[in-house]
């Protein structure tokens, strides 16, 4: 294929480096420095998409982030598919594979286009709200058709092979945009000694200067840009970020900058390179130099490929050496629009006419066009375009002075390209992100940034200053202001000389009238991507959708991936006209992040896959892995769940582990329990306030179990606390509750009772805990210790400091299984050494490692609760049948006391924790099952309670369960019923939750 629209010279492309790309399966050539869009235009590709609702052919309209149509699917492999890439922002690389996203069988010959033509009339805005209702049953069918037709590109079905990351940056001045204003601002700030970051979405700095033929200091503008960039690079405190879009401006001067590091190189990032990086920037001052987007005019059939904006035409010619057509008609409301015609003519192609909507046109650019002999038709407009897949001609007619009516006859001109300019809209998106509402300016004919609390300055196009000289000056001033705010010395900067042009006033025109009323004229598009027309907006207003937000939502205007960058102002103007209001009276439109779309991968950085969330390990983790343990996630911890042997089912493993504990000895890694060291003379008093039971008399060397309640009286954690010294305690918490309990202790200490002399320190990670439990546990311990661990010397609920396997240890004789148990705590650096010695020595005692599941069964046989499983934030100690763990004698009204005495907490018939024995001992009630009194009742049934813990107990040879029953503690021996999903019903008898060794003799031996 030849690049028949490519000029032989000029532009910033490298004609010596040719690149091959494919579009819809066909191969084309472009050059290094091209965007995909410029390369497509060079090759004369007209149709790049089919529209969303009417399936109309669409072409490239713009040259930047505002492009609504050229939204393509990229990717050479399934895993590297990227949906919805804007061709105007994608740099060309060799081997790029692209395709259009809608249209069947192809974008050129699309069947839906016919339906769009016929059915389009039945699809006014919001038509879907008015139909598809009858019959009700068919909605799902309608909807699945709508869903298939909607959407643009597609997500890959394979996992992303690329990596992304994020990096945190701090600076004095963040300059957004590296056009003339941004470069002047950054250079000023840098020379003043500020730490500067300057980011621009394009691959090269320069902004509008790259698209322009206008000289600076009599030399090409690119020379000046080059010099500034070189100087900025030399500063140690300046970071230059090309290919980096500032996508979000968040509160307190926090910005997200999305840098594309390899998208210009290949389909997949080269080895060791991150594809995209998110810079999370905290800036002391932000200078927005984001420029402006040109507005197209709204006229009939303005979406036919070949209709563009004038700035894009200039950009393709000057930057990429591409003339996107042969015969150009320009329609403009302002002087800037003439530049496209001048550039087109300079490129040697035919300018058919410049149609100026103003009756008088006499600015310098107009004069230049006259001198060049270009045809200028004033006081007129292109009211309609002919053609379907490419413009073939235009209808031009004279307008009245206000541009609201056609006053003359219609002239038809042949042309293949229409470039329109309705003026420019400042790119105020970022300034809106933190809630600042933009302000309309009649002078600029656009919205300007509104007042903001952010430390923000603006310069250049964003302020409606579109002439290079003014943009440079504003950039300089913004840089100086930032320096002053930062207390840094002022600097001078000699700005390059730019010829100042005389400009005639622009005309405020958005929507070009047609011979027919808007509702009957050919479609006049306002928002291309969402297929919103001027007629559609008028209908919405007529129906009563008068707030601009209503108009936008009813028509979907601005909801595309371009977020209405081209169309929003025009749409507001159409609505304002329909409502007989001014644009600012219609409302303002606020933009939200992102400025342009960002890959999910770039937002999450490395926090995915293996690094999604930390896995916390104990000192013995490696041993568990080597033994083939399966793990349970408890908070971020990986805890051994059970240790299967070859060929075992999970139940067989659990049975084996349970019996080992009951008959010999088992070992559990209990290191994950939260541990808090408490010191100070008021430690004991503090414990009395935060636990529901009494702590005043616990002697040194003893341990006690306690319940923790919130101020509402509801249990939220539990554990054993040991008295290490008169003023020294070690508190244990649940594994998942450790962090919360620690913060809870601190908040009461720091805010309520600072007078209490006590310090809390988390020591969870410091101690490693191996629990040995079972009748043989003492024998095992005796082998490895220098201490006397006999029942006489070392009582139940005592703790002692002894050595175990040569390592000093704190050993707690407490039991969560009901068996004789020792919890051996050693400094975690020695946890593995002690564990391995225990395993070795334990062989002859039948020592069996067990995990959390067996731990749960063993404790349930004893009726011990697990906070979080047998509590749900709605039960107090009495509900748990644990009134023995509440002391109402304490002088201080401990946390939870008042709460558990509120009227609802002391009423009859609260749900209470009981044991449940199935009538058929072989049946295990599924956990979560709901209890009813009458299984044959009519739904909705009143739920009496639920099963919180339920297991097969191999020790008892039957199932056991704990659960809640309304008034259960008074219903011992009564039956309740658990209807299951499969329709069966399990009958169970309410009983004590202590199923095994009710007298608690085994732990005392």
């Amino acid at each position: 294929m030849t690049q028949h629209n490519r000029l032989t010279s000029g532009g910033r492309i490298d004609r010596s480096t040719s690149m091959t790309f494919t579009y819809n399966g066909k191969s084309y050539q472009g050059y290094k420095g091209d965007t995909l869009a410029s390369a497509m235009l060079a090759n004369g590709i007209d149709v790049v998409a089919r529209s969303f609702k009417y399936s109309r052919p669409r072409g490239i309209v713009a040259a930047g982030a505002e492009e609504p149509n050229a939204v393509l699917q990229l990717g050479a492999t399934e895993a590297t598919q990227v949906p919805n890439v804007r061709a105007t922002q994608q740099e060309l690389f060799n081997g790029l594979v692209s395709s259009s996203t809608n249209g069947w069988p192809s974008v050129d010959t699309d069947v839906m286009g016919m339906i769009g033509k016929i059915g389009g009339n039945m699809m006014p805005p919001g038509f879907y709200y008015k139909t598809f209702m009858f019959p009700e049953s068919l909605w799902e069918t309608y909807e699945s058709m709508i869903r298939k037709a909607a959407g643009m590109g597609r997500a890959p079905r394979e996992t992303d092979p690329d990596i992304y990351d994020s990096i945190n940056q701090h600076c004095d001045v963040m300059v957004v945009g590296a056009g003339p204003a941004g470069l002047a601002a950054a250079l000023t700030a840098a020379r003043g000694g500020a730490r500067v970051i300057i980011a621009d979405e394009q691959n090269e700095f320069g902004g509008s200067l790259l698209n322009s033929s206008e000289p600076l200091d009599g030399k090409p503008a690119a020379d000046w840009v080059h010099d500034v960039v070189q100087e900025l690079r030399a500063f140690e405190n300046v970071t230059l970020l090309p290919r980096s879009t500032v996508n979000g401006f968040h509160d307190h001067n926090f910005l997200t900058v999305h840098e594309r590091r390899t998208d210009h190189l290949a389909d997949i990032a080269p080895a060791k390179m991150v594809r995209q990086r998110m810079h999370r920037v905290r800036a002391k001052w932000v200078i927005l130099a984001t420029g402006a987007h040109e507005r197209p005019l709204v006229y009939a059939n303005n979406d036919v490929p070949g209709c563009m904006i004038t700035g894009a035409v200039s950009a393709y010619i000057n930057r990429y050496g591409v003339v996107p057509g042969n015969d150009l008609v320009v329609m403009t409301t302002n002087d800037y629009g003439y530049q496209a015609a001048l550039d087109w003519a300079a490129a040697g192609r035919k300018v058919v006419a410049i149609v100026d909507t103003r009756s008088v046109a006499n600015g310098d650019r107009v004069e230049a066009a006259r001198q060049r002999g270009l045809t200028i038709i004033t006081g007129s407009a292109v009211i309609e375009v002919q053609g379907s897949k490419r413009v073939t001609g235009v209808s031009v007619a004279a307008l009245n002075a206000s541009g609201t009516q056609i006053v003359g006859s219609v002239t038809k001109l042949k042309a293949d390209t229409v470039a329109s300019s309705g003026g420019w809209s400042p790119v105020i998106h970022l300034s809106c992100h933190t809630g600042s509402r933009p302000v309309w300016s009649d002078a600029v004919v656009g919205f300007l940034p509104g007042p903001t609390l952010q430390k923000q300055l603006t310069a250049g196009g964003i302020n409606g200053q579109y002439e290079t000289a003014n943009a440079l000056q504003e950039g300089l001033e913004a840089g100086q202001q930032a320096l002053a705010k930062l207390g840094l010395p002022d600097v001078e900067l000699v700005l390059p000389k730019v010829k100042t042009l005389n400009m005639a006033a622009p005309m405020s025109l958005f929507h070009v009238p047609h011979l027919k009323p808007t509702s009957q004229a050919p479609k006049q598009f306002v928002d291309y991507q969402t297929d919103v027309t001027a007629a559609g907006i008028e209908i919405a207003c007529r129906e009563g959708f008068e707030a601009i937000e209503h108009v936008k939502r009813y028509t979907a205007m601005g909801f595309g991936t371009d977020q209405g960058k081209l169309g929003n102002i025009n749409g507001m103007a159409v609505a304002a006209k329909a409502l007989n209001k001014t644009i600012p009276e219609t409302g303002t439109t606020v933009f939200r992040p992102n400025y342009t779309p960002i890959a999910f991968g770039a937002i999450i950085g490395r926090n995915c896959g293996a690094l999604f969330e930390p896995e916390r390990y104990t000192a013995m983790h490696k041993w568990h892995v080597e033994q083939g343990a399966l793990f349970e996630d408890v908070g971020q911890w990986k805890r051994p769940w059970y240790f299967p042997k070859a060929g075992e089912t999970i139940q067989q493993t659990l049975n084996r582990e349970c019996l080992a504990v009951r008959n010999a000895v088992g070992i559990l890694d209990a290191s994950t329990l939260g541990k808090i060291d408490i010191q100070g003379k008021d430690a004991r008093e503090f414990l009395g306030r935060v636990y529901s039971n009494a702590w005043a008399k616990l002697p040194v060397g003893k341990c006690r179990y306690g319940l923790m309640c919130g101020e509402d009286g509801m249990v939220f954690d539990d554990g054993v606390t040991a008295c290490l010294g008169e003023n020294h305690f070690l508190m244990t918490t649940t594994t998942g509750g450790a962090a919360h309990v620690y913060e809870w202790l601190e908040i009461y200490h720091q805010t309520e009772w600072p007078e209490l002399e006590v310090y809390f320190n988390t020591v969870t990670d410091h101690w490693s805990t191996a629990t040995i439990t079972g009748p043989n546990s003492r024998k095992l311990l005796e082998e490895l210790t220098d201490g006397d661990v006999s029942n006489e010397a070392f009582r139940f609920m005592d703790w002692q400091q002894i050595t175990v396997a040569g390592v000093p240890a704190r050993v707690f004789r407490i039991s969560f299984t009901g068996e004789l148990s020792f919890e051996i705590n050693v400094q975690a650096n020695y946890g593995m050494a002690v564990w391995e010695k225990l395993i070795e020595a334990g062989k002859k005692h039948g020592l069996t490692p067990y995990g959390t599941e067996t731990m749960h069964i063993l404790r349930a046989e004893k009726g011990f609760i697990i906070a979080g499983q047998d509590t749900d934030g709605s039960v107090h100690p009495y509900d748990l049948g644990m009134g023995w763990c509440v002391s109402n004698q304490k002088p201080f009204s401990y946390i939870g006391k008042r709460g558990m005495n509120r009227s609802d907490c002391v009423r009859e018939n609260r749900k209470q924790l009981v044991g449940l024995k199935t009538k058929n001992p072989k049946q295990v009630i599924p956990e979560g099952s709901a209890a009813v009194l009458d299984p044959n009742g009519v739904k909705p049934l009143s739920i009496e309670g639920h099963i919180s813990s339920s297991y097969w107990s191999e020790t008892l040879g039957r199932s056991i369960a704990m659960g809640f029953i309304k008034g259960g503690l008074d219903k011992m021996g009564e039956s309740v019923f658990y209807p299951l999903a499969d329709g069966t019903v399990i009958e169970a008898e309410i009983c004590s939750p202590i199923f095994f060794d009710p007298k608690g003799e085994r732990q005392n031996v």
Partner: protein
Amino acid sequence: MSDVTSTTKLEQAATKAAVMNQLPADKESLGQSPLHHADFASAAKRGAQKGGIHLSELALLGHLTLRCDAGNLEQLAAVEAILGVPLPLTPLTSVEKGAYSVRWMSPDEWLILVPGLEAFSIESQFRDAMPGHYSLVNSSGGSTVLMLSGDNAVELLQKSTTIDWHLSVFPVGKVVSTLFAKSTATIRRTDDQRFELIIRRSFADYIWLWIQDASLEYGLVIEA
């Protein structure tokens, strides 16, 4: 080994706490730092010798957390007598003398690092000499120390934390406790391009994974 509470010389001392020498006689062969499984010694021999990130572990040091009153002159004097350096009272600062170093953690909290063998001795000296209300906790088993250096060390920290590491605001000696990726770390600058990271035991493997990953583009050199 059965004296549970240490006897204090100062009978009026408010804190009566349990102190124990937590180290076995055979500490060298038995001790396993939280990154034992990463085997830095082998990695140092086998791995890359050039790269923008250098990493080593200072394993099995003595970590002592001191909580006391920064306004109590008697306490300050006692600490200085024991450690030979005054407590750093300015937020986010540290002091270092010989093998002892002290980091400001909070207005009433300092983290003291000493050689592993000296932890018990220092702790005992505190119990003997420190007046008033305070707490001292041996946390040696709960954390480890990583030394991070190299041309790209600051960039790696930028990827991992939200702190401003510019020398003008983060000079040598400054110390912060902060989020490190999805864990936490106490980080001190010991030289322009050299940092000390104190990390929690249970998160050590995660941080090790994170650092390897974040070093990919710079090259990671493990030092024994």
